[in-house]
């Protein structure tokens, strides 16, 4: 690519994709079908990878390509596959009654978005690419967190956790010049993979012993 495209385009791209990530997050928050959720997550991760790619392209940062690649392999392909397999295995498709109904959920998420922007405001000046990517990142973290509270199925909680992690990665890309040092990226990447596998194992065992994966049934340990 001999003519280096102007940063404006890049930053607009990034802003766009970040916004889409947020939208996907909100969708994820309100819709109950588990398979859809997994797909939504995969797409969200794809946008994350896209952002990483754009950054790498415009900053000529080789490392960040690696990040993008890892994201695609791990979060767009492997993890969704794993989760789908799980879902098929345990034949549960629906998230039944979350704690809050969709309307309330949306309102809470709106509040969280607001908070995210407030927290991120002091740093918008520091961002090079696209404004308020950081705000989106923090919002992802907060909404993901809220999603964990709001969901009862073990798997959807795992998904929520993964979106939180997406948010963190987005923040990393948004804030730092060339992403985190590679060794750290690898570390994080493998940790996440292992974490999901272990969670898979646990979900499996829980399903075996409780013949259900409703985490609100896990309340034997008190006091």
């Amino acid at each position, binding site marked *: 690519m001999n003519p280096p495209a102007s940063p404006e385009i890049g930053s607009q791209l990034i802003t766009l994709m970040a916004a889409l990530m947020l939208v996907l997050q909100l969708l994820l928050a309100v819709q109950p079908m588990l398979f859809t959720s997994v797909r939504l997550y995969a797409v969200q991760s794809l946008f994350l990878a896209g952002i990483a790619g754009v950054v790498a392209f415009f900053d000529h940062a080789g490392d960040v390509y690696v990040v993008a690649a890892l994201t695609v392999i791990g979060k767009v392909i492997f993890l969704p596959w794993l989760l789908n397999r799980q879902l098929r295995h345990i034949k549960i498709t629906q998230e039944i009654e979350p*704690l809050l109904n969709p309307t309330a959920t949306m309102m809470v998420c709106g509040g969280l978005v607001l*908070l995210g922007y*407030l927290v991120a405001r002091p740093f918008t000046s520091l961002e090079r690419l696209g404004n308020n990517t950081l705000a989106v990142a923090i919002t992802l973290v907060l909404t993901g*967190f809220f999603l964990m*509270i709001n969901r009862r199925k073990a798997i959807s909680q795992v998904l929520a956790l993964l979106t939180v992690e997406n948010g963190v990665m987005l923040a990393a890309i948004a804030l730092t010049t060339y992403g985190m040092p590679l060794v750290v990226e690898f570390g994080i990447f493998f940790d996440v993979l292992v974490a999901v596998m272990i969670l898979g194992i646990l979900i499996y065992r829980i399903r075996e012993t409780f013949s259900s994966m409703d985490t609100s049934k896990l*309340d034997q340990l*008190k006091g």
Partner: protein
Amino acid sequence: MDNFFIPAFLLNLGLSGYAAGAVAGLLLLRFEKLANIFSFGLAAFASVCGVIACVTALATGATAQSQTFELLPSLVPYLQFTVRLDSLGAFFGLIVSLLGMVISIYSLGYARGFYGRKNVGVFAAFFNLLLLSTTLVFLAGNAFFFLIAWEIMALTAYCLISFEHEKEETRNAGVLFFIMSHIGTGCLILGFLLLFQASGNYSFDGFHLLGNAMSPGKRDAAFLLFLAGFGVKAGIVPLHIWLPAAHSVAPSNVSSIMSGVVIKAGIYGMTRVFFDFLGSPPEWWGVTVLAIGTISAVLGVLYALMEHDLKRLLAYHSIENIGIILMGLGASLMFLHSGHQMLASLALIAGLYHTINHAVFKGLLFLGAGAVLHATHTRNMEEMGGLAKRMRWTALFFLVGAVAISALPPLNGFISEWLTYQSLLQGFGTTTSLVRLMFPISGAMLALTGALAAACFVKAFGITFLAQPRSEHAKNAHEASFTMLLSQGILTAACVFLGLFPTVFLKLFDPLTQQFTGQQLSAQLSAANGLVLSNATAQGGTVSMLGLALLGLSLLAVPFVLWLLFAMRAKTRRGPTWDCGQRGLTPQMEYTATGFSKPIRMIFKALFRPHREVQREYDFSPYFATTVRFESHVEEVFQTRIYRPLNRLVLGVSRRLRALQAGSIQAYLIYIFITLLLLLIFAL
């Protein structure tokens, strides 16, 4: 320093002796006889060393100014293992060593009762550790070290109290003791921290008269903290709640050492802090201490009268006597405030003299009670009786102890209470403020206490040792073993000596009063070259137990002469007690302990609020009952009004809080989420 060499050496010997005793006890776990002999033997040896050390130190004036040496090197900041022998430490060291010696001898016999049943080795080890830590409490020269010794003392005491842990009563008593004592320690830590803040280190030398340099507020706070902290250990009302329970369930030799020595640690602490550290006292300190002393004395003896459990009865008397001791200390503080050094020393001596007296006769009484338990396997006086015939020596020793604790001449109890009376009476003139009414009033209360104590011990001795045995156990009672009798004999001798020759003993107080009030009183207190105890005023007011004793003996001539004149030919024969004609007087007809104290229970009904329950079964008229069941018991007002509600409150609140950990992961996530949001907003 050379006149300090011998005490220092002996002290080290003694301390290591205790340690060795503890180790021996643990090493010989499996061989109980050897453990018994070696461990208690070493304890006895160590305490003999202690006695000699302290007496020489006090006599040779090695304690004129405090002497210190390091026991161990220390590694943590602020902590030094300083052993510091000054007059006060030596005096209390004398008490612990004396009692330790006697009770170790006693235990040689007493511990046989545990053979095959309990682990004598462990018991002996804890016993040694208790003596060791208590000695260190009196000799510690560094607050940090003091607290360590203090806590170890509490810990070992706890283990010994709950040694016979098979009974739930024992376990609860142990827990109550330990919790109260730990709360007390909390107060002490805070108090010492206040001093520490002022002086910057924990050395007792640095604390000397520190209070004068502190702000009044902190000084008063420290006073109250120490009063509460040491008060718990000493068992002042209303912090005494643990004492009757603990002393009654512990093995008797432990009760004896607890009541004789361990609660005295509280007295030691108060004397040390009030007279040595906190500097010139404001008036209300003395007034408070005197008031608390008076209240403790009266309430202690009143509750003692309501008991028919021999050891609980004795325990309540410990509260009473602590009260009497505090009367002396309180008066002394008031005199220090009004600048009457001479009277201050008199009152201080009165208090401390009563301290050692109480140690001696209460130790003796508990040992006696132990012998009785050993023989009858019960603490309930209603099941005793007639033991004077079966346990002659024990009865004699117990009687001496009873006379002594009832403050009757010619024994030691009377001497110290006489000194207390004297200081209270002379106190009236020291001030013109209304406060001086405190003195005669507490004097009158002291009189009431004395009379009630006499009543109580007529009951204790009479019901336990006299008349017919009230149970099979009592009927088959046997005399205690030799070592148990020997130890009681020693303490009996001590009672007599401290009663007959106070002026000899008073010399030991000179360095002490010199240190705290700058006065030496023993010369003024003795008249007629030491035969007579004087109240150190020109107007006279003297007493001589020796003289009275001799007088009494010589007056025996009167009955003798009369016997010669008239009764030579009179014969004596045994007959049945008058039984109003229906033949055969059974033990059931005897006056019971409960019955004996009934009039007093009625008089002080307002305080005791006795629970009384009578069930009559009758055929045609309630006046001809076929069976009558009578139940009556007195529960302490502090127990019912303060401690139980408090306990309920705390546990109730805690149970409510358990709901936080309800088990739902969503709830837990919410906790974290809210924390996060709050922090983010806080950071904005």
